[in-house]
């Protein structure tokens, strides 16, 4: 399924049509990254696959972790005990940017229904990312959602999508994406400038 992480990276905790939160064990933090394209797969195939961008990774503490943080010198065995055995959940938040319907058609719009609790969440394959970024309709959903860091999230996703393209196509892809963003943010030049700086091949200094 995914490039380097074959199994699910998490399972859905709670969801709405706008997005979902997923939980995982803390040792699974190697798989997800900010701005990654992920999907919640329905169990049984009777619902849509929901695609989204990972915009937050959150690790909860507990009283014992707080004690360990204050300790003088925590041994490797103790740290590995915490990460392997204790239920320290990693919570990730995903903004929905599209879904695939029963007929296999990918649509850049909010899904008709949210994924359900415990649906597995995977990192999208390269093919899925290429398909998702073949058009830029999802930009509006990212930039128009107040609770996500829109420019940062879109930039991270675009840089990731450019890296899986052949070297000769990467700059063209980013330039096209920048043009599309410019149309959406024509009335907010500060945001546009920030976004373009973030996706520039060599970041520009203001």
């Amino acid at each position, binding site marked *: 399924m995914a490039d380097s992480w074959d199994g699910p990276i998490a399972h859905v905790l709670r969801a709405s049509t706008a997005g979902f939160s997923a939980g995982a064990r803390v040792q699974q933090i190697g798989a997800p990254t900010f701005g990654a394209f992920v999907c919640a797969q329905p169990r049984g195939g009777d619902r849509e696959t929901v695609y989204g961008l990972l915009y937050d990774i959150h690790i909860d503490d507990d009283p*014992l972790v707080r*004690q*360990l943080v*204050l300790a003088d010198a925590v041994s490797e*065995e103790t740290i590995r*005990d915490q990460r*392997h*055995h204790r239920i320290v959940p990693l919570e990730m938040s995903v903004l929905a940017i599209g879904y695939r319907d029963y007929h296999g058609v990918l649509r850049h719009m909010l899904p008709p229904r949210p994924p359900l609790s415990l649906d597995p969440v995977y990192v999208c394959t390269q093919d899925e990312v290429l398909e998702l970024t073949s058009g830029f309709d999802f930009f509006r959903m990212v930039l128009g959602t107040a609770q996500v860091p829109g420019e940062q999230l879109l930039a991270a996703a675009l840089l990731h999508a450019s890296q899986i393209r052949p070297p000769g196509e990467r700059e063209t892809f980013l330039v096209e994406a920048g043009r599309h963003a410019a149309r959406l943010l024509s009335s907010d030049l500060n945001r546009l400038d920030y976004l373009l700086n973030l996706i520039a091949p060599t970041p520009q200094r203001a």
Partner: protein
Amino acid sequence: MTLEFHKLTQQIEQMGSYLAAREDEAADKLELAWQIMEAYSSEEFLPLILERVADALAKDAGYRGARPIDEPIMNTYPPAQLPPSATILATDGSQIAPNPHGAAFYYLINTGTIVLHHGSGEPPEVICEPFLYYEDEHLRLPDRGPITGATVAARRTVAEMSALAEQTWLRRGEPRPLVALLDNPLLPFGIGKEVPERDELQNIYLSAISRLLETRALLAGYTDRPRSRYVVGLLHLLSLEPENVNRTTLATDGRLEGLEDKALFHYLLRPGERSALFVQMSPLNKEFKSRAGETHEIAFFYLNTAAPGQAPTLARVEIPMWVAEDRRAIAELQALLYHQCHQVASRYPYVLTRAHELALIKSDEARQLNVIIEVAMARYGVAAEESEKQLGKAAVGRRRTRFEVH
């Protein structure tokens, strides 16, 4: 109704005042105890101290204080260098007590064990073993009465020692020192006379200790913030004229009454140091020794687990005599315990914290278990209903919910 705090205000003030007065008294008692301790601190007094204890025991004067083994009573001992490798096991237990008003009459004992391979860099092993007791033979005492909370607690104590012995036995080939830790005194005072099957449970408990002896594990029972007065009892005995030692004078600690050992060792022990080794002269310890041999007699020492520059934090560590006889092993145990206490900010061994966490049955989990049992009962056509009393209590015990308007 909720607790009416305003009716407690005056009582709380009185409590504060009482505790302050008791602290003032304790300072005077501590000074006196210190003087006695210093007077007998030299090694040359050890034979005399042992003679005074032997005399009190011979008189059957009800002496319950400490007896030094062979170390001067005011000596302190630093830990050994931390062993590069060791295998540390820690076990704890918890229970769901039988509830005669619940839908089903049962109880559950859960033991949690952690096996930490010190120095390996590997994650430890964790083992949880829950056992459900629901058959008549488990729920009826020999007199056919229903099982009591005290009996379940005693069975849990035995289950903890048995689980620790079992897991230690399985790892007897692992790197040494092999440390087996319990979050309790090793002398199981919980298996008291009110427990009808006391003898049988004590035999199982002693058998588990024997199994640990076969592995030559460093068995230790850890008591945080001990309230014991064994050494104070010894100092009281030493303050008496030999002819005045009798049941009346030993019924209390006399002018030292109320003083705890930890007050003494608070000033004596530097971080990481242990006290001299003592044996507690209780009837239970005597019984252990007579039933299972000298190896099973329980000794103890105090340990200051604080970091340098911090206020002392004291623990009492109980060890069987086969460990007490090996001073190098004690120094290594001391070093490993001290290291464990510094894995967390609270100066309590990390492995015991985790064993407790593994064993703990949270109230939510107990409720879930009840639901699962009720479902299973219904599946088999067994009526599962809580008593009227339980239903009534549940109705008033719940937090009120509010209907919110959005």
